[in-house]
């Protein structure tokens, strides 16, 4: 007999709370280990939460739409005849209450409680719990004699606290309700006519329903590449509308607001800027992009590759301040800042030092696209050793980025500009790009940062080196 507590999983280092988007199982449903129980929204992405115990989903304690802190009990899986009162009862006192007065669904609504097939065995033994089982002393009155099941001794009630370890992407898995997308009839028609895939849109209507404005926003949203050529829309200045509106913080905006001061204030930043001649890099890129069957390479891909290679020879920049020591990384995991409508996120391209340019181009594009759809997996959102933030598409000459701790540095990339340059015979036109490295002074000094930047510049200015 085992009672499995379902708790709000911690899906990233920074995650403090999560919102249950929807339950894919309802009270009374029989679940197997590995079944997707619910979708959870974190500050970074929407992820699916797996069941790690088998049995009947006896109780849902946090209803869809509510946000609770990490570790809060949100449901209970047990056999139909298990007594779960002590576990549920504890939720009121122990676990923090859900925001917005989440109403636990009535237990009477679980029709299969009595009818549940009793033959289904929990397969706990196959899958170790993330947290060691916690033996609990239960009220003796609550104990019932049970037939021996699996490895447990009769009469010992085991309560497992299980968290989802491997959230999977929403995209690759069939959703629990047969792939039904909640959308208004009008939204469906407009989507069909404008070729928008409703599965890729986040609904803003009640209960996440996709409504007309969501589809219209999606169909007019510039494609990733189109961002380079911003279209200026004429805006009629309004003097009649409301003067302002207060917009609630999205989980992502709240995370950014909380996290950035944690970097800027305690981390002593210094900045090193260098100008890179992009003429040859530009030509190379055009040449590569002219090749049939090759992935399109962006300027950013060239910079990622250049940084990855340079970091291998400047491990001091690929490092993190750890209080009493400095951790120097031997592998390069590159964080790539992706701007979203509601903020930004930094998916991580792993082991980028070992990847050729074409692979970087493909993977970076995939990460950015999925970041915009908020379909990143949790492991893709943490573990960067160095980051790049590129605002070149916004015609930014140069800027300074804030380090994303515990990383030691971040590179800010401006746009490639055509500028007058001094050549041997006088004045000419060249392409130039500014790179600004923000460094954690606790980890490195000015000269270290400058030398690193010098080598990045050299690689980009002799771009054939990026191909070998």
């Amino acid at each position, binding site marked *: 007999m085992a009672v499995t507590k379902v708790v709000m999983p911690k899906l990233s280092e920074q995650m403090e709370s999560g919102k249950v988007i929807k339950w894919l199982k309802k009270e009374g449903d029989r679940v197997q280990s590995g079944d997707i129980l619910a979708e959870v929204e974190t500050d970074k992405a929407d992820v699916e939460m797996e069941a790690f115990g088998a049995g009947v989903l006896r109780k849902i304690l946090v209803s869809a739409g509510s946000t609770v802190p990490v570790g809060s009990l949100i449901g209970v899986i047990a056999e139909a005849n298990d007594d779960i009162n002590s576990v549920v009862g504890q939720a009121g006192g122990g676990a923090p209450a859900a925001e917005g007065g989440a109403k636990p669904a009535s237990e009477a609504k679980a029709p299969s409680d009595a009818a549940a097939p009793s033959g289904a065995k929990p397969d706990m033994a196959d899958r170790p719990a993330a947290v060691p089982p916690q033996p609990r002393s239960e009220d003796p009155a609550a104990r019932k004699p049970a037939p021996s099941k699996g490895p447990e001794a009769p009469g010992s009630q085991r309560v497992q606290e299980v968290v989802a370890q491997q959230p999977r992407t929403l995209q690759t898995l069939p959703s629990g309700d047969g792939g039904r997308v909640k959308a*208004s*009839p*009008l939204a469906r*028609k*407009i989507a069909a006519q404008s070729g928008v895939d409703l599965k890729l849109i986040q609904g803003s209507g009640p209960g996440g329903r996709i409504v*007309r404005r969501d589809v219209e926003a999606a169909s007019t949203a510039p494609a990733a590449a189109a961002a380079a050529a911003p279209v200026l829309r004429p805006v009629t200045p309004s003097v009649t509308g*409301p*003067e*302002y*509106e207060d917009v609630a913080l999205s989980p992502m905006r709240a995370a950014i607001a909380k996290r950035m001061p944690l970097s800027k204030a305690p981390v002593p930043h210094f900045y090193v800027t260098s100008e890179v001649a992009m003429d040859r890099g530009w030509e190379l890129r055009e040449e590569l992009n002219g090749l049939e069957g090759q992935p399109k390479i962006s300027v950013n891909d060239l910079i990622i590759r250049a940084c990855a290679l340079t970091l291998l020879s400047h491990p001091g920049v690929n490092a993190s301040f750890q209080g009493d020591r400095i951790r120097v990384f031997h592998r390069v995991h590159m964080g790539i800042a992706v701007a979203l409508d509601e903020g930004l996120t930094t998916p991580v391209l792993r082991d980028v030092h070992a990847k050729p340019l074409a692979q970087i181009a493909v993977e970076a594009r995939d990460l950015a696209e999925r970041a915009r759809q908020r379909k990143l997996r949790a492991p893709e959102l943490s573990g960067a050793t160095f980051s790049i933030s590129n605002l070149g598409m916004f015609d930014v000459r140069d800027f300074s980025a804030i380090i994303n701790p515990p990383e030691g540095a971040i590179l800010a990339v401006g746009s490639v500009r055509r500028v007058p340059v001094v050549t041997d015979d006088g004045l000419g036109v060249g392409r130039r790009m500014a790179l600004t490295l923000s460094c954690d002074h606790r980890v490195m000094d000015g000269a270290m940062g400058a030398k690193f930047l010098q080598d990045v510049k050299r690689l980009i200015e002799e771009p054939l080196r990026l191909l070998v």
Partner: protein
Amino acid sequence: MNQYDVVVVGTGPGGYVSAIRAAQLGLSVATVEDDRPGGVCLNWGCIPTKALLRNAEIVQLFEKAETFGITVQGMKADYAAAVQRSRSVADRMAKGVEFLFRKNKITLFPGTGSLKGKNVVEVRGKDGPTTLEAGRAVILATGSEPKSLSGVAIDEKTVISSNGAVRNETKPKSIVVIGAGAVGVEFADVYRSYGVEVTLLEALPRIVPIEDEEVSTQLTRSLSRRGITIKTGVKVSSVKPLAGGVVVETDGGRFEAQQVLMAVGRAARTKGVGLEALGVAMERGFVKVSPTMETSVKGVYAIGDMAGVPLLAHKAMAEGVVAAEAIAGKSPRPVDYGNVPSCTYCRPQVASIGLTEAKAKEGGREVAVGKFPFTANGKAVALGETEGFVKVIADKKTGEILGVHIIGPEATEIIHEFAVGRTLEATVDEIMHTIHAHPTLSEAALEATLAALGHAIHI
């Protein structure tokens, strides 16, 4: 000093609804009212006029009784009794609001409320001034009052407003109604039903000018047939007393009558509320508000007629809910001003939602228009109420329901099918696939939708 979470100034449909919603959300609420709870709507507007219009309808039914084979002899329609009944209906509704306040533990302070600070309201009542402090927010809901034409004073004797019309137990022999919006048309109907000679003047080219043009045409025909003189596109230059009545001079002629009803619109009641001292921003005579109904001064909210058009009770109620929920820390959905039904309760009734045909076409959009007359609707024929039609305007490409215009029996009830549909973003297809009970007036809604799709069955 009395402390409450929320102080609501004005208890019309906006104010009382916001007070109740705030109380439901666990806030302590005080309300301030210088008249009776319920505001203009319950006491002097919507509700008592609907009672009068019911009388008017019954009179008209009696006049038509012959066509049903019913002979009525010695019928007498007592106008004073109609007004008395209307008053008792209003009383009952106002008491209902008092009951709801008690039920929700809302304290009512009789008197005139004005802001003395962003969270302080002074109430000047019979027993001297009281000061209320709002811990969370003040909601202003002081409503509106009838406008007049410049240089014309409303004395409520010969020149009356809706306030006088709804109270006066004696009817005039003849009346000139200036303004053919909802108020003007409804009183024209009441007076005409009781045998008053009615002249309806409108400065714009057609009566019920905000409605679809075809509706105006149909209503003009219906009201003219009942003996109401209608003059549109006429500008009133003066209203002057005359022995035993008034004379109205216009650029389209001179009209004499015993009384004039001024129905040229309503103006926000914003004077004496203390807005100026606090620097509350205004816009075209209304208080400027955010989507959550907050004014330019944080913690001061404004709802209803004082907060902008349309001046409708149901729009005020919706705003009241939004304000209360925002104050309670919820994130309410803002009012969808594009989806507010508009209703006129004359006979035949007029109801609409969304865009008129002309407006829908303005953007160069391709529209499909479907129209179905009540003469082809079984229930309407059985009732003997066949005037009017349902008109549906849809986007040709997406089937979006852009606007619906109904004139005819129970138009003000039928419209909600489309209000719900538009809220859910239903298209003409969903209306088409909804089985409508037979025989009902609502079948005309289905048929007009089918007509927009090009295949109405019953015509």
